């Protein structure tokens, strides 16, 4: 950004400062550590100056908000126009329990819903499957059929509320259930809006709740994207997620690079299936984690927008500016929370939420203080919502767009993140794409290594975790109340399934399942067939098993 003359002048000035001002201080007072690093263990310099961002061209690299490459935000006015969506992830027990929590959160001023499903549902298993034992309703709501979904959204107008659903391997089925509930409410599919996570690649990499092998899984995703483009145009059919990649131990850069590279993979598959990139790209969305390292996280979000804009425009030739925008939801880092001194988690979450806002997120979930112990209680969940409201209404950080833009440090970190992404893209492209990289365990091994290095740094106290490896209390002064999910939930679910199977038209269920298998064997879009199964009250497990018969099951390669 600077002329050659100005640069050499600045270099001289910096040299002078180092000799005259810095050195005497260092001689007298050495620094606290030989090296300072981010949470991701990347080195941080003592001081950043215009020299660190001289490779940047303001208009090309930083630019104006609402314009390519969107480094400063996707909207010209950002939070001056509209605050982010407060979207707390919630779900536990039965659909009845969760419906009550949803209504509570809406009363507290939450503006969108976000559904957490239990593990059997995430795996496409009914609540009465033997493998579901002990897991029903535990870390999310149990949904086995359309009947459960009807209860989940009872009294919630789907044309007015937007819903995000964290569901991946069986996403097409859960989405179909949502659509049928909307249909029964008399809502217009053209008007409903929300998100299904539907990101199977990050499942193979990190969260590991898969059903089918990669290729048929990708086909189901392309089917949902194509279906939405035609029938549910305001729906976000995929939320490409780094959250779980980070929770599995990835660095900020790995989270960013693997997530965006997964995004590239989805776009490639859709384009190959004959979809016009500008017809679906504006409906793609992302989901990032926000960990403790304030500036590293802000840089990650700014780099995300910049890299995605360039990928969409240059790699895929998208012409619609909305196709270039990286819109994302953020969740504060669950893995950063400690079971020790749990009230400290409120402070951690506040710092993380602030970074997400300064990074320009469109939607935010703040974790509750008790999440290293159990699911959030109502009180803890409310406090988490209040954290966002205090940032929004009291901190003042929302009053100007991208307030950290131009910071030597933030801009330098943003560029470093951007460069790191392209390096990972090159490696993965050379392996033949993300599926090939996953099959050889590349992202998995990179993440495992990072997780181990981080834990070692904590063990050696190179990274201080308050209340864990420093400022430890022998005895915790306060016990945190815990939300308990009773085993009776599983019993209620099993009974509901028994009654459903006795009541429904089982011949119709069989017919719809057979038709779905036939479609799955061919190349037709599977969504209309899944919808028919759902309308007949086939269960989640039955529909997923039908597809399993055709597609097979994924086995993780050993590495």
């Amino acid at each position, binding site marked *: 950004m600077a002329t050659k003359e100005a640069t050499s002048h600045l270099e001289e000035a910096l040299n002078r400062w180092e000799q005259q001002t810095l050195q005497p201080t260092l001689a007298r007072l050495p620094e606290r550590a030989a090296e300072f690093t981010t949470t991701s263990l990347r080195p941080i310099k003592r001081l950043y100056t215009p020299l660190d961002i001289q490779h940047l061209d303001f208009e090309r690299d930083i630019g104006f908000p609402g314009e390519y490459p969107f480094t400063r935000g996707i909207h010209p006015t950002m939070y001056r126009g509209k605050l982010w969506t407060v979207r707390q992830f919630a779900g536990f027990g039965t659909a009845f329990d969760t419906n009550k929590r949803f209504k509570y959160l809406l009363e507290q001023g939450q503006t969108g819903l976000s559904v957490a499903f239990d593990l059997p549902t995430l795996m496409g298993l009914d609540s009465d499957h033997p493998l579901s034992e*002990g*897991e029903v309703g535990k870390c999310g709501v149990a949904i086995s059929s359309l009947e459960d979904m009807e209860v989940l959204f009872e009294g919630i107008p789907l044309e007015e509320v937007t819903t995000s659903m964290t569901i991946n391997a069986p996403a097409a089925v859960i989405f179909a259930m949502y659509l049928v509930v909307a249909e029964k409410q008399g809502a217009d599919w053209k008007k409903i809006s929300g998100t299904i996570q539907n990101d199977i690649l990050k499942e193979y990499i990190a969260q590991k709740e898969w059903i089918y092998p990669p290729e048929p899984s990708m086909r189901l995703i392309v089917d949902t994207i194509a279906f939405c483009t035609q029938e549910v145009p305001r729906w976000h059919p995929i939320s490409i997620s780094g959250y779980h990649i980070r929770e599995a131990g990835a660095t900020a850069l790995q989270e960013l690079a693997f997530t965006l590279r997964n995004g590239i993979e989805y776009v490639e598959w859709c384009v190959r299936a004959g979809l016009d990139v500008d017809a679906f790209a504006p409906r793609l969305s992302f989901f990032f984690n926000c960990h403790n390292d304030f500036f590293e996280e802000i840089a990650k979000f700014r780099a995300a927008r910049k890299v995605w804009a360039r990928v969409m425009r240059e790699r895929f030739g998208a012409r619609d500016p909305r196709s270039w925008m990286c819109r994302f939801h953020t969740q504060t880092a669950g893995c950063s929370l400690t079971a020790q001194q749990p009230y400290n988690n409120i402070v951690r979450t506040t710092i993380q939420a602030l970074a997400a806002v300064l990074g320009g997120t469109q939607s935010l979930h703040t974790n509750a203080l008790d999440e290293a*112990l159990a699911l959030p209680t109502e009180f803890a969940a409310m406090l988490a919502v209040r954290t966002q409201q205090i940032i929004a209404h009291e901190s003042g950080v929302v009053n100007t767009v991208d307030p950290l833009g131009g910071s030597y440090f933030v801009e330098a970190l943003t560029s470093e993140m951007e460069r790191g992404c392209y390096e990972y893209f090159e490696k993965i492209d050379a392996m033949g794409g993300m599926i090939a990289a996953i099959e050889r365990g590349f992202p998995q091994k990179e993440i495992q290594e990072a997780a181990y290095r981080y*834990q070692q740094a*904590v063990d050696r106290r190179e990274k201080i975790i308050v209340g864990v490896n420093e400022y430890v209390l022998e005895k915790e002064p306060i016990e945190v109340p*815990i939300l308990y999910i009773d085993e009776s939930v599983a019993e209620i679910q099993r009974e509901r399934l028994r009654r459903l199977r006795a009541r429904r038209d089982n011949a119709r269920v069989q017919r719809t399942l057979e038709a779905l298998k036939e479609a799955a064997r061919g190349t037709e879009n599977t969504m209309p067939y899944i919808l028919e199964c759902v309308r007949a009250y086939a269960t989640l497990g039955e529909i997923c098993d039908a597809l399993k018969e055709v597609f097979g099951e994924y086995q*993780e390669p050993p590495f």
Partner: protein
Amino acid sequence: MGERKIRVLIAKPGLDGHDRGAKVVARALRDAGMEVIYTGLRQTPEQIVTAALQEDVDVIGLSILSGAHMTLVPRVMELVREKGLTDVVVFVGGIIPQEDIPKLKALGVAEVFLPGTLLEQIVQAVRQIVKRPLGTSE
């Protein structure tokens, strides 16, 4: 003959796919000189105890974050007793509410490690509890 390495089975029972903790702990124990067998994801209590028997381990480490521990751990402990693995020490790690810790210990679980536990604490705990005298291995 001679001192045998401590043998540890790290297992993830139930449907939970969050294996970061299990893998980090497995690696730390291995780096501390133990022999570690990691069973992989979604193992039933039966599969875990059978593996423990076949591998002749001293320690079973169960990693659970899903809240299913009060169903899965009692089942593992029952099978451990049934198969006569009375010398085997069982550890649990994960998201475990405080009030469940005494219940798990009453079942015979040696120690429960919560998020934030240092690797060194886990290595020490395993070493302390497994005090296999010299030359007792087959």
